[in-house]
């Protein structure tokens, strides 16, 4: 097989620790314990090696990356290596001074996430009083000359407030707003019946997003992507397996998609044992779904297979038990009824008897 194109995106999931408990978190249910996290030296090597093979965008993510005390060291190193570095954060764990220090060290962009546009819902979903601090941090980000990117994760509990979210973003003079759909992995999948919006809600949110896109053109960019469950076609997950995206989990496991841990038949490697170059170019895990050799029907003969590459393998596995099946969000998938059933449940407004589960660590792991 020809040498793959370089990874353009390195997602550094530096920790799974997080002061928030959002039920839509896409982290795995088995959160990586702190004691298993990569140390500073290993992260520095990961940054260096990934940059050498062409990664240009770097996301510091988690969990909450601000929990890492060596984040300043990593940010400084990233800038020297020529990364464009993005901090993806709840804002909890920094103050105006730390925001300024990050700027001096060369951090390019901070994305602050909000759970909602008002304190009550925000703090309920986050499981902690955090709304006011988020507002303060959004303002500090702006004051320090960063482009201000706000992210709202959208789901059934808050989708009715998209207009208010956009008004808040405009008031804060955000440069970009992401109305990000909850990804139904990990905790979000566990809580899916509480989170999945109805078709009508999704379309109404889309209409409002378009209205604001037109109204605020040139001032604020708004990203709203209709969730794959409602589109009849899958998304090209992470831009295609092993094509642009490389994630490194807190324990050093290198992942072609941040949800790929535990996919059956997938041989993944840890950056403690292997170089990033080998992992990206040679490892069986990253080559597993490259090309079309793995495809079954309906993907194998589908005229859209070069557009979406069969969709999300993790989703195919979680919903059908086989990651080589077509992503069931595709209407051509023989398992599409599973997605339709989930949406139907949402349409009927059936309140599941299972309580919503806020993200938390297993008490036994530290």
């Amino acid at each position: 097989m020809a040498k793959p194109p370089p990874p353009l995106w390195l997602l550094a999931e530096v920790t799974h620790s997080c002061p928030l408990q959002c039920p839509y978190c896409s982290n795995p249910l088995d959160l990586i314990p702190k004691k298993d996290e990569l140390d500073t030296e290993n992260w520095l090597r990961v940054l260096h090696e990934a940059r050498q093979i062409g990664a240009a965008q770097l996301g510091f993510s988690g969990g909450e990356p601000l929990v890492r005390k060596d984040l300043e060291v990593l940010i400084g190193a990233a800038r020297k290596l020529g990364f464009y570095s993005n901090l993806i954060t709840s804002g909890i764990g920094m103050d105006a001074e730390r925001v300024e220090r990050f700027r001096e060290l060369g951090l390019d962009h901070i994305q602050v996430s909000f759970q909602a546009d008002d304190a009550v819902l925000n703090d309920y979903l986050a499981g902690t009083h955090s709304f006011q601090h988020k507002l303060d941090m959004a303002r500090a980000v702006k004051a320090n000359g960063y482009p201000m990117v706000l992210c709202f994760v959208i789901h059934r509990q808050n989708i009715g407030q998209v207009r208010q979210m956009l008004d808040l973003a405009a008031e804060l003079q955000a440069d970009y707003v992401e109305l990000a759909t909850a990804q139904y992995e990990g905790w979000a999948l566990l809580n899916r019946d509480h989170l999945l919006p109805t078709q009508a809600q999704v379309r109404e949110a889309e209409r409002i997003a378009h209205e604001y896109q037109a109204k605020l053109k040139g001032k604020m960019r708004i990203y709203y992507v209709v969730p794959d469950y409602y589109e009849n076609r899958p998304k090209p997950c992470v831009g295609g397996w092993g094509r642009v995206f490389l994630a490194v989990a807190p324990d050093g496991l290198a992942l072609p998609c941040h949800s790929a841990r535990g996919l059956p038949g997938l041989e993944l490697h840890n950056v403690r044992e292997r170089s990033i170059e080998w992992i990206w170019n040679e490892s069986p895990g990253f080559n597993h779904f490259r090309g079309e050799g793995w495809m079954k029907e309906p993907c194998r003969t589908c005229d859209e297979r070069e557009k979406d590459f069969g969709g999300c393998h993790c989703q195919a596995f979680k919903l059908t038990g086989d990651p080589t099946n077509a992503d069931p969000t595709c209407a051509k998938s023989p398992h599409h009824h599973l997605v339709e059933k989930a949406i139907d449940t949402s349409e009927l407004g059936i309140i599941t008897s299972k309580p919503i589960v806020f993200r938390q660590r297993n008490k036994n792991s530290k």
Partner: protein
Amino acid sequence: MSDTLNSKPGIALGYRLQWEEVQQCHVLLYPEGMVQLNDTAAAILAFCDGKRSVLGVIAALENEYEAEDLREDVVAFLHEAVDRGWVRYG
């Protein structure tokens, strides 16, 4: 139009122009995104420092590349670059 020619284009806040050795091209990096630039686009953007006017950018390019009549191309490119949010006038 003359207003535009005298205004000073600069790379927009949060965008960074840099050479990528592995990709063998200039890229424009921005929050969670990247565009690969052709040589012409990169050459124009390299002179968009927020200090030169559009006329100054054109003159600098014509001097650097020993070319003439670049005005139309530069103006057309900058129009698109502003539209895409890459460039802002200071």
